[in-house]
């Protein structure tokens, strides 16, 4: 979520509460002969407030499970998650008296720190990565469709090369896709998604062999590489001067396909970064809640 002027209210409220609590904590510490304690009434109050903030922030995960329920806009929930999560930090620190305590409480503080820091890390990523993605991946697509689009790109590349070089037996997957596509078109002749495909050349030109060789050696392996590979697209400019001039448009189209495949890989990696931190943030927050429950029960009991 982008932090913009819409968050001003949340920011001011969080800052005001933090400053007020910090001032109160200062006087509380001065008045405590044995230092602040989580078990004192004031310490308990901070603990309850901090835990409530954490619970409300954690409700975002539940909210995402019932997206269709009318429980307020998602932006509001995300804002609450961010700012209450940040507010929980000083409240929990005041509750703990800036001490780690015993085994369980130290574990809790470590988990809390990791969850908070990973959340802040994710928030920072969300401020910059979308812009980076817009600049560097103009040819982006839906992440869930990425595999399908990549296969489509490979098919398009085969179609282009086969239209001048003839059928290429090594490209069996592409041939199968084209056959399936043709079958689907026959079943639904008026389908708006139908793509007019050029058939493979029956009398390939001599230069077609060169194109076929480059396709099999560089282009096809590149299009079928791992979705996250950092490999730059093959340079096929040398083909331009060695092939007929009227092939230039085809070659440019091939180059565009390779470029798009490259950008999809970039998009995939950026997507992984933008979502990967959640693998730390979300599961650890679950563990944090469970251990916090143990702490609350035992601390209140004794």
């Amino acid at each position, binding site marked *: 979520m982008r932090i913009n002027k819409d968050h001003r209210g949340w920011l001011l409220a969080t800052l005001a509460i933090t400053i007020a609590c910090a001032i109160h904590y200062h006087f509380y510490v001065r008045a405590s*002969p*044995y*230092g602040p*304690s*989580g*078990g004192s009434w004031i310490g308990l109050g901070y603990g309850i407030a901090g835990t409530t903030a954490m619970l409300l922030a954690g409700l975002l995960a539940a909210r995402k499970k019932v997206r269709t329920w009318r429980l307020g806009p998602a932006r509001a929930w995300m804002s609450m998650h961010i700012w209450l999560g940040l507010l929980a930090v000083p409240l929990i620190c005041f509750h703990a008296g800036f*001490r780690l*305590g*015993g*085994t*369980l*409480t130290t*574990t809790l503080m470590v988990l809390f720190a990791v969850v908070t820091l990973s959340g802040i890390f994710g928030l920072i990523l969300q401020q910059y990565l979308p812009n980076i993605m817009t600049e560097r991946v103009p*040819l982006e*697509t*839906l*992440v*869930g*469709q990425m595999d*399908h*689009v990549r296969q*489509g790109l490979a098919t398009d590349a085969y179609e282009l090369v086969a239209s001048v070089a003839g059928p290429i037996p090594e490209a069996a997957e592409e041939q199968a896709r084209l056959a399936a596509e043709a079958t689907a078109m026959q079943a639904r002749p008026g389908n*708006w*998604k139908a*793509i007019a495909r050029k058939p493979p050349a029956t009398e390939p030109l001599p230069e077609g062999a060169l194109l076929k060789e480059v396709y099999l050696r560089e282009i096809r392996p590149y299009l079928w590489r791992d979705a996250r590979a950092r490999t730059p697209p093959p340079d096929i400019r040398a083909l331009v001067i060695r092939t007929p001039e009227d092939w230039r448009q085809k070659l440019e189209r091939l180059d*565009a396909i390779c470029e798009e495949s490259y950008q999809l890989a970039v998009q995939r990696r950026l*997507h992984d970064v933008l*979502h*990967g931190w*959640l*693998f730390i943030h*979300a*599961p*650890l927050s*679950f*563990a944090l809640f*469970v*251990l916090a429950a*143990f*702490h609350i029960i*035992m*601390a*209140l*009991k*004794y």
Partner: protein
Amino acid sequence: MARASKDLAKRLRFDLWPKPDFFRRWYWLVGVIFVAAGVAAWYGLHMGSQQRQYLPGPVSQGHASFGDRCETCHEAYGGVPTKNCLGCHADRAHSKFEVKTPECASCHVEHRASGVFLAVSNASCVDCHGDLRTTRTEPVIAHTMRGFADHPELGPLRPGKRDEAAIRFNHKLHLSTTKIGEDDKLGCVSCHGIGKDGGLMQAIVFEQHCEKCHAQSGLGPDSSVQVVHDTPDVVREDLKAKLLFAAVNNPDGIFGSTDPGLPGRVRRDPLDASKSLAVFIDPGTPKSALAMAESKLYAPLDASAEQGASSLLDNNKYCFLCHDQDGTSAPGDLPAIKPTKIPTRWLVHGEFSHRVHDLLKCEHCHPDIRDSAETAQTNLPPKDTCTRCHIDGQEQSAGTSCMLCHLYHDTSKDHVLRDGRRKEISIEAIFGKEAPKAQKPAP
């Protein structure tokens, strides 16, 4: 490269439900795994260290043997009631005049850094002494004390107080006298030493500190008898025995005259004309050796000799140089000596330790001692002397904690309390299980 929306849409498949990406598929599973790991970790800690994992901080050394059993001290949802402390510790009252006794846990806070448990904060003391209420009509100690700056003057130095000891002693005289050789010059440590407990000064012992110059000697017909420093009745018996001893050992010198028959011998009067040894030591016979010796011993202080130090000592060598007579006595009766009542401890409400202050020169705290000529002068340092080092509110201070000088649980004053309520607890009860076996030392 510009792409039309339709061209883009042609590439996508909306007839299939999109497969959630890797993250969405695995979030919840990883979350469940982490939750299970958290529960497993808690369970493992619970089985291994029982309740130690819940400790908010270390347990003090004295409680470490049962630190993993919270219920020993804590009551479920009830804090730490004093009755749980009394399960091991004897009840230790502070004062029989206190209006309420605070809970043990209000001053002794556990689960802090080791050692801090015993360091009671001044605030706990100020809780009561900041506005002291007692069962007395009026408190006899200061009742608004919020810090060392509010501390009143030390008790023996307050207006109207004086040294009530019934003994004459002149510090100025003793520290400046020229009658003693350079090698034997008197200093503070000549008489004053720190007691075995390190706190109070040792009591002055006549035989150890005074006898060298003030020996009760020169008594008897031949001035050979020296008596002990004790009560008059003991001194009389000692004197009798020693006079007899002298008489038996030197009968000619004391009783007899020389044989006039030997040439060169000069007849001379005997030292004592007693007809018998019984008369010699008969206190009822005015001229007996015993009576003569006692008249010297108990000669009243010759006040006219107070002008000069040397004349005072020269004319008053015996008991009443330092002691006072208690009442009067009939002729022939032994006088009663007033009990000296020299305090062994001046600060009865404070625990002062000379050992801790050993590095300081005596004159640092007792600067006027060399000018002290009167017994009535208490010679204790005023509270201002303490505040030169014990400075409130400064880091560079010897400390102003109430506990530095004062005890809350002072069982030394209450033997019945200390002995009557002593508790005995088995090792099994402390450890809550089979007592740990003694470890063999490593080879």
